[in-house]
């Protein structure tokens, strides 16, 4: 009883706070400060049609690097935390097969899903989307393949190598920016190209493809761990 009334009290104070915020909210009428700078000079400085990508990859590139590091940290903590003992690792559980509909559909859909994921992260500087979204789409293809065939083993080494290599190249491209252009993760050491083309915006498509591969590999690694931990007794 006391607990319920305390919860009600907390929620009521939140409602009070939100009510005042909501009532005093006035939608903005024009871009302010840094956003105006991005809108005005973003296309000329970075060359990316998608300004969100310009902000994420170039203006706030260091932030994105931290974000990728956090994902890596999550994947490694989960790997460490769900580590199986030797005895469990060798155990073989044969799952019941899934329905034929799912198996057949997955054979057709998985290549298309992978292709779509790659499309999303390669076109990250032109259309809505980018590395993180594309990586998540690729990982969803892997979820489908696990669901269609629960006994499938994901190749752990391939994931590890894709993740490490793309992570290292991300940092190398960032450092190249220091020497060849204005600063860390500056994309202008490759020519900016024609605005709106696929090969434009300097290093952004390369950086976003690397991020996409890395995120896809990390999420697949997490999924692989979850799947394997079924063996734990």
């Amino acid at each position, binding site marked *: 009883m006391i607990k319920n009334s305390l919860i009600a009290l907390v929620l009521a104070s939140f409602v009070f706070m939100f009510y005042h915020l909501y009532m005093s909210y006035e939608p903005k009428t024009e871009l302010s400060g840094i956003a105006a700078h991005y809108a005005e000079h973003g296309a000329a400085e970075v060359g990316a*049609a998608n300004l969100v990508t310009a902000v994420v990859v170039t203006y706030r590139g260091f932030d994105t690097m931290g974000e990728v590091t956090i994902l890596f940290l999550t994947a490694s903590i989960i790997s460490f935390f769900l580590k199986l003992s030797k005895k469990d690792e060798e155990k073989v559980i044969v799952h019941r097969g899934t329905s034929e509909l799912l198996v057949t559909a997955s054979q057709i859909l998985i290549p298309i899903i992978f292709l779509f994921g790659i499309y999303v992260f390669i076109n990250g500087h032109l259309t809505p989307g980018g590395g993180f979204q594309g990586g998540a789409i690729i990982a969803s293809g892997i979820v489908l393949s696990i669901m269609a065939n629960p006994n499938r083993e994901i190749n752990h080494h391939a994931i590890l190598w894709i993740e490490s290599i793309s992570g290292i190249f991300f940092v190398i491209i960032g450092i190249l920016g220091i020497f060849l252009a204005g600063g860390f993760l500056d994309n202008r050491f490759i020519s900016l190209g024609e605005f709106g083309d696929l090969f434009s915006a300097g290093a952004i498509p390369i950086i976003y493809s690397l991020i996409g591969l890395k995120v896809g590999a990390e999420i697949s690694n997490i999924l692989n761990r979850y799947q394997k931990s079924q063996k734990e007794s």
Partner: protein
Amino acid sequence: MMEYLNLGKISLLIGFILILIGFWGLLSQKNIIKIIVSFTILETGINILIVALGWIKGRTAPIIDDSVEQMANHNVLNTIVDPVPQALVLTAIVIGFGVTALLLAYAMKLFRAKRTLEINKFNDLKW
């Protein structure tokens, strides 16, 4: 009524409601999986709120293509919404994914330890 409730206010309202639902779930639910679901609802509410704060009436997404250029008469400044909150929310979504994945891993381990997901049964640190 319609001019009072613009898109920004509607999104703000949805964000606040989702945050309240999330807090309610976090505080009142006993099942660990339900707590994790409440957490993700709370996070979604906050993300909607941040994106809503960057909204400007009558403007389009911050992607410069031909239609935007035409609309603006080559002045992008008056055509697009604020790109910064959207970039921040992209970061927040990824961090939220990481936290949720960790929470689920912990939930799995907790279930293995006691064969239950009731949070009241985990009272080892209580005195």
